C-alpha cells in the first residue's frame, strides 16, 4: 500500500460526495442522469465505478470536476468535498486551480483528449507552468522525466512530436503523464483503456496502478468491464440508471453481491474458465429510459426477484457494515427470496 505523504489533512476521506445530482432538460422532460449518489474515497485507494451506458457513471464524475453544465442545460446538485474543502462553493478561478493542482484526469479516447496541434512536451508541461509555476525550461525537463516514467522510449524525441505521430497506447501514456504531472491527490480515469487493444490495455492499467501506488493518489476508475474492475479496484460502486445500487469492496462484490443486478451481471458474463457453448444466463429487457422514470426500483422490470413493493417504491441505499445496497430483497445473508 502507499506510504507517500499525500493523505488527506484531517484523516477523513479525501473525496466526499453527498447526494450528487445531474439533470438535463430535454423535450421529453427532465432526464435524471445522476439521481442522488453519495460516496467517500480514502487517499491511496481505488474506487471502481462500474455501470453500463446510461448508468450515469461518466456524467457523475464529470459533474464532480465541473465538466458538465456549461450551456447544455444541465442542472447539477449535491455536495462535493476534496480534502475537506467544499468544491462547489469555490469561485471559478479557485476551482480551476484546484482542478489543475489536485485532480488529474485521463479520458477514454487519447485521439481527442490531446491537442493535435501542440507538441507532446509542451502539453505535459502546460499544467506545470500554470499550476506549479515552473518556467518553460524546467517544465520541459520535467516533461521528459515524466515521459520516461510512463514508459515512452526516446523521450526527448517524442517530446517534440505531435500526437498523431504516436500510437494509441503511447498517446494514452502521454495522457497519463499529463494527468500526474502536477502530482495530484486524486486521479480520475474514465474508461482509460476501452479504446485500446487488450494487450496494450494491460500495460496501461499496470502503469496507472503503479503510478497510483508510488504517489499515494486516490483513484477513481470508471469502467464497464468487470474484469478490469476486479483486478484494479479496491472498492466498487455499481451504478444503474443514475443511482448507486451497490457499494462494497471488490471481493465482497464478486464473492457475494447483494444486489440482484450485480449478481445477474456477473452471471451473464462469458468467462474463459467456462466450457465452450455454455449457455449464458442473460438479463431480460434493457436499461430504462432515464427521462421516463416511474416509481419503484429502476431494475425491477428485469429483476428475477421482484415483488409488488419493488414496483411501488424506490429502495434507498441501506448500509450494512461498510457495504451499501439499494434493494428490498438483497441477496445473501437475510435476503434473496424470490417474488
Amino acid at each position, binding site marked *: 500500500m502507499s506510504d507517500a505523504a499525500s493523505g488527506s489533512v484531517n484523516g477523513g476521506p479525501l473525496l466526499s460526495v453527498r447526494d450528487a445530482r445531474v439533470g438535463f432538460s430535454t423535450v421529453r422532460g427532465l432526464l435524471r442522469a445522476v439521481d442522488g449518489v453519495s460516496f467517500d474515497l480514502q487517499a491511496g485507494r481505488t474506487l471502481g465505478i462500474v455501470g453500463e451506458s446510461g448508468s450515469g457513471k461518466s456524467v457523475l464524475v464529470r459533474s464532480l470536476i465541473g465538466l458538465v453544465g456549461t450551456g447544455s442545460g444541465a442542472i447539477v446538485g449535491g455536495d462535493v468535498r476534496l480534502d475537506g474543502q467544499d468544491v462547489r462553493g469555490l469561485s471559478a478561478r479557485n476551482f480551476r486551480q484546484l482542478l489543475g493542482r489536485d485532480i488529474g484526469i485521463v479520458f477514454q479516447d487519447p485521439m481527442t483528449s490531446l491537442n493535435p496541434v501542440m507538441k507532446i512536451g509542451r502539453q505535459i508541461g502546460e499544467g506545470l507552468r500554470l499550476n506549479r509555476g515552473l518556467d518553460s525550461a524546467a517544465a520541459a525537463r520535467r516533461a521528459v522525466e515524466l515521459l520516461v516514467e510512463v*514508459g515512452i522510449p526516446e523521450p526527448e524525441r517524442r517530446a517534440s512530436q505531435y500526437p498523431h505521430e504516436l500510437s494509441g497506447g503511447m498517446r494514452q501514456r502521454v495522457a497519463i503523464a499529463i494527468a500526474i504531472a502536477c502530482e495530484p491527490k486524486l486521479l480520475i480515469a474514465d474508461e482509460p483503456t476501452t479504446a485500446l487493444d487488450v*494487450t496494450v490495455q*494491460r500495460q496501461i492499467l499496470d502503469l496507472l496502478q503503479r503510478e497510483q501506488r508510488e504517489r499515494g493518489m486516490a483513484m477513481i476508475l470508471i469502467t464497464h*468491464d468487470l474484469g478490469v474492475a*476486479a483486478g484494479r479496484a479496491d472498492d466498487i460502486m455499481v451504478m444503474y440508471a443514475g443511482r448507486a445500487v451497490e457499494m462494497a469492496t471488490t471481493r465482497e462484490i464478486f464473492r457475494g453481491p447483494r444486489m440482484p443486478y450485480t449478481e445477474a451481471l456477473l452471471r451473464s458474463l462469458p*468467462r474463459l474458465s467456462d466450457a465452450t457453448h455454455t*449457455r449464458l444466463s442473460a*438479463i431480460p429487457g*434493457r436499461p430504462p429510459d432515464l427521462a421516463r422514470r416511474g416509481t419503484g426500483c429502476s431494475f425491477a422490470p428485469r429483476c428475477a426477484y421482484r415483488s409488488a413493493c419493488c414496483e411501488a417504491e424506490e429502495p434507498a441505499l441501506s448500509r450494512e457494515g461498510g457495504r451499501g445496497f439499494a434493494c428490498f430483497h438483497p441477496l445473501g445473508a437475510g435476503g434473496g427470496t424470490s417474488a
Partner: protein
Amino acid sequence: MSDLLRMTDLNVEYPVGGGRHVHAVSDVTLAVRHGETLGLVGESGSGKSSLARALLQLPPPQRGSVLFDGNELTQMRGEALRAVRPRLQMIFQDPIASLNPRRRVAEIVAEPLVVSGVRDPAERTRRVRAVMEAVGLDPDLVWTRRPHEFSGGQCQRIAIARALVLEPKLIVCDEPVSALDVSIRAQILNLLEDMKARFGLTLLFIAHDLAVVKSVSDRVAVMYLGRLCEVADSASLFATPAHPYTAALMAAIPEPDPDVPLGDTKLRPGDPPSPLDPPSGCRFRTRCPHAEARCTAEVPPLREIAPGREVACHFPLMG
C-alpha cells in the same frame, strides 16, 4: 465434415498514397466447415474485418481464392455473384449504423427479399414476420418504426433478422456484440446460438474478446497483423495455446474475478507494429519473448503440429 467455405492464400492490401500499402491480410488459408462456428480472434490491425469483407468480395481480395458452397467467388461478377449472395450474409459491429435510418424496420428486413426477386408482397410479409418472431421481435410493434427508436440490442436483432430472411448458409458476424451493453451481450449471443441451431447455420464469428469467442466457437483462429497464428478447436486452444501470441492474449485478459491474479503476458515492451510496415519474417517477433534469428529471416508457415491444430511459429509452445 466438409468445408462450406475455403479461403486459400487470401491477400488484401489497401493503397494509402505515396506508393505504400497496408498489408491487411497476408496469405491466409483457412476453412470453415459445415455447421460449425469458427471464431476469428485478433486485435486492431489484425486484418480480421478486412478478411470478412474480402470473403464477401466487398471489395474482392487482391490475390487468393474464396471457394464457397462450390462457387469460386473471386471469379464471379454481376448476376452470378448476386445469385450466390443470399447464401452468404453478414452482421456488423455497430447495429444502429448497419440500418438505414430513413427506412422502416419492415422495409429493412424485407429488402433482401425484394432484391432477390420475391415479388409477392404477401409472401414477403409472411417471411418477414416469421423471421422477426424468430429473433424475438414483436412484428406488430416494430413494423413501421425506424431504427433510431430502438436500442442497440434491438437493432442487432433487426440486423440478424435481415441476415436470416434469405435463409443463408453462412453468416459472418463481425464483432456483433462489442458495441452492446454488457447486460445485453448475453441475450444476443444466446440468440445467435439459437438461430444457428434452428436454421442449421454456419457462423464465422469475429471478435477481439476471447471469452466471447470461446463461448460460441467450435474452432478458433487467431490472427496477428494480417497473418494466421494458430487454428485449433476451442477447448484445446484455450487449454494449451501453442502460439506465443495466443498465450499473451489470454494472459492479458482481465478475468472478472479478484482472486485470479493478473497473468503475465511476457510481451516485450513496445508498441504493436503498424500494418503499413510489418516486420519481416514472423510479424510477431518484435514482441515475442522467444524470438530468435530465424524468426526475422523466415516467415513461419502454418503447419499442423497435432490433429486439428495448426500453428505458424518456428518455436511453438507445444508439439
